[in-house]
């Protein structure tokens, strides 16, 4: 009895420890070690691995393609997020209205989330191909175009970074990420008490006023959290760009995560790849710090 009482004092710690050790082993230690590796010239076939200081960084940043890839990544992230979030919020609000068939539609809309990225990429590649695409056939049937478009192969670039393949990659990405945001928003919406809307109705508030004065403010914490997390995930997104286009044509759709992967596991230049991943860390750090500060405040001052 006495022993168990003594042990009980440590229960909170014992509960915490396994997860913390796991995170240290999988996230924290390897991250620090990757930062260390970025200062060395580590390649698979070279036995000596000399310290080269900022050599990898200089090499990465002096490559003119790097800036292009960074801009690609930001464009991909921001547009996937904005349009993904808008679609998710519209659909979530409609689903929350309690019309007939909402369980059915919800089940349909969640399907892209459980579809393996490889399948997503393969099907969309077919849908956007030049010769076998039903979309091309449809556009031709309604006389909008007179010969099929090679959606993923166009190499014209507008405004320095917008290209048709990139827009297609973003649309495919929105298809696969909006269900998660939709679920988060839906959960957030269901916690808004319906009395608020009833009161607003009595007071004669318009639908738009109800949206901006009740729905949006109540959803804001959920929206903020999901958008920040989703933003970081999309910034690191590897699957869509790699599986749909392999970064092509002419690295028009290449993003940073794909570059890290191909430097490390195709070219076997581990040090150089690590430097690229540290560059990614520096770029996400700014919104991240804001997010951490905000969540800590929300958790402990409330």
């Amino acid at each position, binding site marked *: 009895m006495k022993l168990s009482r003594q042990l009980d004092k440590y229960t909170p710690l014992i509960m915490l420890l396994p997860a913390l050790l796991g995170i240290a082993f999988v996230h924290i230690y390897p991250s620090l070690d990757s930062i260390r590796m970025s200062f060395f010239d580590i390649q698979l076939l070279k036995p000596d691995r000399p310290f080269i200081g900022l050599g990898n960084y200089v090499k990465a940043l002096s490559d003119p393609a790097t800036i292009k890839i960074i801009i690609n990544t930001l464009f991909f992230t921001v547009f996937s997020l904005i349009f993904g979030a808008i679609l998710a919020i519209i659909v979530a609000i409609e689903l929350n209205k309690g019309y007939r068939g909402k*369980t059915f539609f919800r089940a349909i809309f969640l399907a892209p*989330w459980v579809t393996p990225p490889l399948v997503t990429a393969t099907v969309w590649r077919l849908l956007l191909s030049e010769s076998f695409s039903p979309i091309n056939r449809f556009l031709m049937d309604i006389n909008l175009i007179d010969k099929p478009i090679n959606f993923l192969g166009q190499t014209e670039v507008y405004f320095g970074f917008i290209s048709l393949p990139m827009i297609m990659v973003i649309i495919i990405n929105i298809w696969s990420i909006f269900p998660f945001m939709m679920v988060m928003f839906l959960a957030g919406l269901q916690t808004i008490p319906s009395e608020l809307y009833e009161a607003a109705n009595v007071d004669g508030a318009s639908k738009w006023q109800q949206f901006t004065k009740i729905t949006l403010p109540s959803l804001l914490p959920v929206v903020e959290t999901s958008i920040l997390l989703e933003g970081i995930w999309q910034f690191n997104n590897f699957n869509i760009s790699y599986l749909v286009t392999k970064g092509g044509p002419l690295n028009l759709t290449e993003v940073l*995560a794909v570059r890290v992967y191909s430097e490390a596991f195709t070219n076997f230049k581990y040090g150089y790849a690590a430097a690229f991943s540290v560059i990614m860390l520096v770029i996400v750090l700014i919104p991240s710090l804001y997010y951490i500060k905000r969540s800590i405040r929300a958790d402990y001052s409330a």
Partner: protein
Amino acid sequence: MSSKKIKPALKHYAVMAVTSVFVLLPFYWMVITSIKPSNEVMLSPPTYFPKVLNIQNYIDVWSTLPLLKYMSNSLFVSVMTTIICVALATLCGYSISRFSNRRLQKSSVVLMLLSQLIPGVLPFISFYFIMFNLNLTNTYAGLIIAYSMWGIPFCTLMIKSYFTSAIPVSLEESATIDGCTRFGIFFRIALPISLPGIVATAIFSFILAWNEFMWASVILSNNDLKPASIGIYDYIGQFGGNSNMALTMTTSVLITLPAIILFAFLQKYLISGLTAGAVKG
């Protein structure tokens, strides 16, 4: 019925219809392509519907690809990942929500957020060497350890807010007075009440493991161990782009369908499990 009620309803179903088309188009094309006879598949422009139904592709894929093997690998890895991830995240999330004024618990939250914000590829390179040196490449363990730990930060934060908002502290206080240990309270009171939150967390980690591609493609070269997410990659790559669309689409249907059907049944738990947790945002 007045026009005041009809207009919003029309708008509602218009939104549902447009979104459904966007979401379902790939699935529709997958199924349609997989049941087209081989001469029809190569028509350009393609036909919207096949003239005759043809299941030869299914027979071909089933007899050439070890799909059942891939699926059972996927299932094993995903279930193990879910069990480990949910167990650790629940314990940790409980500790954080109940002893939130302690320093260690506070810094754990920061650690969780931080690990969530590190770009996935940053630890990736070093972690590959660690797993290689531990002889864990080409093992299930290499996958399960990585996936379950990757899922922990998000799952912990999710289940933590569920504990905080769903279980009244007073309920636990009375149990303490009755002489229950903290572990006793956790297992007898906290766990049963927060079951919806735990199910939502489990669904999340299951999907994470089920869909993962990058890590699996790096550490697995042994064909017998491959989960479906990468097992079919060799196959699709082998036949390349358009040369055998029908077989590629058939494979896609076969590995996607079970997950979608399962998920359609589980989705209501996902929403209810997230709802209580979302109160505090």
